[in-house]
């Protein structure tokens, strides 16, 4: 009798899931591809702009087993565009770097002669080969350097923890800062490989800290960051960038949205952009970079 009762209830409970109805179809118009801008400044050297395209939700889905293969990546490059940067009544046209292997465009546009004037507004204009127009304005933000960075290795009987103490002399105006901590860099060479942009190289980002100076405007900020996933034998690179507010919000949303509930519920999150007519960022900031071999500490 006991087993009959159990079987009855198990059957009943399983009935909740046994007749799951067929999902309904829905037609949502395919979104037109948008151009995505990424920029980087190598201090005192050159300005680069990378143009890519969005991928439709129906063309790529990681959860369904899609991966970023080279063909897909190549198809995303926005090549043969007209890219200019304007400042002080001067307009520089950027040239596209060709691929080493094929000689085709890479979607990476470079200007070698654009001077980097602090607090100067730079205007980016892009016209794609299909005639789409994008624009963005960005202020060349002054470099803010660390006053001090001290890696500390705390050793207890159970564990060893790497922490970093740092000091920043904040500028008087409103500022937003990005600090990055990454390991195994190749001698502190930060930046992208222009010939293989999507190849992330050997650097491993361990932590990003975002600060806004509301609470310490114009004073020296002292902070401590724990890096539990950094080994005392690693090489550590610490960078500080004085970034604009929109990019700060973008990074903040990227950081906070990777929480458990958002992942679980697939909450929609809109990523900010400073590009009119497209996505991404036209950033004009410089990093201050410190390199440490933790074996020395």
């Amino acid at each position, binding site marked *: 009798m006991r087993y009959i009762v159990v079987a009855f209830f198990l059957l009943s409970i399983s009935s909740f899931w046994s007749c799951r109805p067929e999902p309904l179809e829905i037609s949502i118009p395919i979104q037109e591809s948008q151009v995505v801008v990424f920029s980087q400044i190598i201090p005192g050297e050159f300005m680069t702009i990378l143009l890519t395209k969005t991928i439709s939700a129906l063309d790529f889905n990681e959860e369904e087993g899609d991966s970023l293969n080279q063909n897909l990546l190549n198809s995303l490059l926005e090549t043969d565009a007209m890219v200019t940067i304007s400042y002080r009544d001067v307009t520089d046209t950027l040239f596209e770097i060709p691929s080493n292997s094929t000689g085709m465009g890479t979607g990476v546009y470079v200007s070698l002669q654009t001077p980097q004037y602090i607090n100067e507004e730079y205007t980016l204009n892009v016209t794609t080969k299909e005639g789409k127009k994008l624009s963005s304005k960005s202020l060349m933000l002054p470099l803010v350097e660390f006053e001090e960075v001290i890696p500390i290795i705390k050793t207890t009987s159970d564990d060893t923890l790497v922490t970093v103490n740092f000091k920043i002399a904040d500028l008087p105006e409103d500022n937003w800062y990005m600090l*990055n901590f990454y390991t195994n860099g190749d001698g502190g060479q930060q930046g992208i490989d222009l010939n293989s942009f999507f190849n992330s190289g050997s*650097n491993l980002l361990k932590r990003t800290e975002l600060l806004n100076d509301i609470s310490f405007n114009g004073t020296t900020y002292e902070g401590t960051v724990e890096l539990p996933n950094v080994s005392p034998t690693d090489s550590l690179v610490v960078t500080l960038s004085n970034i604009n507010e929109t990019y700060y919000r973008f990074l903040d949303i990227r950081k*906070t949205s990777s929480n458990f509930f958002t992942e679980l519920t697939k909450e929609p999150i809109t*990523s900010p952009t400073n590009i009119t007519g497209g996505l991404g960022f036209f950033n004009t900031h410089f990093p201050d970079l410190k390199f440490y071999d933790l074996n020395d500490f």
Partner: protein
Amino acid sequence: MKSYTSKIKLVFLFLFSLSQLLAQDKITISGYLSDASNGEALLFANISIKNTTNGINSNEYGFYSLDIPKNEEVTIVYSYLGFATLERTIKETESKTINVKLQSAGQELVEVEVVAERLNTEKEEIKSTQTSTIRIPIEQIKTIPSLGGEVDIIKVVQLMPGITKGGEGGTGMFVRGGDADQNLVLLDEATVYNIGHLFGFFSVFNPDAIKDLTVIKGGFPSQYGGRLSSVLDVRMKEGSNQKFRVEGGIGLLSSRLTVEAPIIKDKASFLLSGRRTYIDQVFKLAKVELPYYFYDLNAKFNYKVSDKDRIFLSSYFGDDVLSYDVQGSNDGEDDFSLDFGFQLGNFTQTLRWNHIYNPKLFSNLSLIHTTFNYNINGKVADNSVLIKSEIRDFGAKMDFTNYKNDKTKIRFGTSLILHRFRPNILSARGDVSEFIDNNEGKKLFTFESAIYGNMEFAATEKLKLNTGLRLTGAAVKNKFYPNIEPRISANYELSDNQSLKLSYSRMSQYMHRVSSSTIALPTDLWYPVSENVKPQSSHQIAAGFNHFFDKPGVSVTLEGYYKTMKNLIEYKEGSNLILNDNFEDLLLQGKGKSWGAELLVRKQRGKVNGWIGYTMAWSRRYFDELNEGEKFWAKYDRRHYLTLVGNWDISKRVTFSAVWEYSSGARFTPLRAQYLFPNAALTGIDIVPVYSKRNEFSMSSSHRLDLNFVFRNNPKKRFRSEWHIGAYNAYNRATPYTIRVRLDETTGQLEYTQPGLFGFIPSVAYNFKFGGSKK
């Protein structure tokens, strides 16, 4: 207490002496109306003078007060839905108390004055100034089919026009374009903060312990406040003061048992009602661990101290519990243990004292305590995390009703509530404490107060008005928020069977439910107004036409409404509120607007009864920091909602019930595209999703048919039983709850699909009762 009572008596005797002098040619008949079988008070019953338009409703405790001509023979008609109407002819020279017991329409009629069941209740609704209000006697809904065969009053409320459900099977309610936290749910006047078990699939209300349910969507009387969109006033049974009575049921998911009995016949009684899921126990027999269960306990005691004083003590206690504990060894080397669980529950207590100062003045004093809390705990080896949140209310309400004369009723009172919040108490031990900061959970106190009054009177022979004012305020640290809330309702009688109604209400809300997700979770935080978080407020205007068709006994109500809302709460996109002690920074406040039309065609009597409800509605939101500052549709902005609910008493022993509902899809923000973007340190590439505009798309419309057969044994037997055999989603159609991108395995292409949660679910339940009457 006696001297306090005497003082109040003196004050009110003075205040109302003038009106008494003016009414010397009339006397007052007052008393209580109750069910003859068990002594339960009959709420909102109709009491009228035959062949006149004079009439009144009993109040929420069954008390009535009616003026009749002095020394003149009149017939008073007492009627209540489902009960035989009783007529009593009297000729009195002075005011008199007449307590009346009505007999169920199904019982043999034993008193000579009793006549057949009549239609006064519906006609009284035509004459009432109350707009946008639906009363649902619990006995009328016990045969309505439901998910898993569990009778659920919230699911029935969701079938009424103007009330939109959230996700499929959930207890979330969105009334007239409002949000889920804008519904004041009262159980014997105590606020119930979490109305759902099992993540909202089942309501906390045990139908065997509930007597009556009133839903108010607009035209709010001034005694109600604190939420913008609706009041769900649930009243528990008092417990039979006539005979011992047992009622229970065994369902697929839970069983319940209710015992009620007189302690002193006609004077004191109690009710105890419990319900528990036993999925965990059944699985345990099969040696499978499913460590989840919920339970409810309702208890009520009432005592008639004297003809003028009654005391009620009621309580509800319910919990959801998950406790998962695994012990084992890792390759025979290190022992490990995993312990994860949560508990969340409501606890309410209400002590009420009814007092009749004189036949025209009735009062109720309520002392209320409510607690809602949840604990989430996780422990792996030596690491543990505990997250707790709690809200606790201590309240007192004093309410007076003065039945000034047969045309005028005045109601006034005051209420004080102290809310104590302790959100996000966080305790971490072990290595994990290096990443999670302990947080004691700052105590937040909010003192919410209100003074109110309203007067219902006949301005002309055909025009009745109910004008009210509610003055409210909330005191929090460094801030006091006062609000003036005028309320007005009007009824213009076109004929005996037709009326036009109009109402305006302003509402304020000092507590908000904040969530990390558009999906309402039981663990969402209730949070009070603060120096930075302002109270929500709304203006609502509603107008309606009511018609009652005598012949088939069908009432038709057509209403339109327009509502504006201010300081609505949303959270910044991507926020995590659970482990965040400073979530005020993550909250956004904006505006909302909703409008729509509702039709309710309802037949409450006869072998075939039920209703048709139709809603056409719009609901918009405006937040500066959401959707790039552009207006957007609310999540549950469903354009059309149609419900057909029918019960057919095929015989005394067989009833067939069916529900069919059609609903426009909820709004959704689908993933449209994605792009690749270097991470902050340029060491890798992130995939950044691109979504549509907020709530830009609607999911597909859905429709569903639920069926239920009830087979009863011989109703003359002392032990009465019934089998409920039913089916949810009889034709197994998906009700979409999300839009996902999935791979179509036949074409190899990605496509958008809309999965549903529940398909065809058969159910069977066995209910029984014995003792008491054969009602």
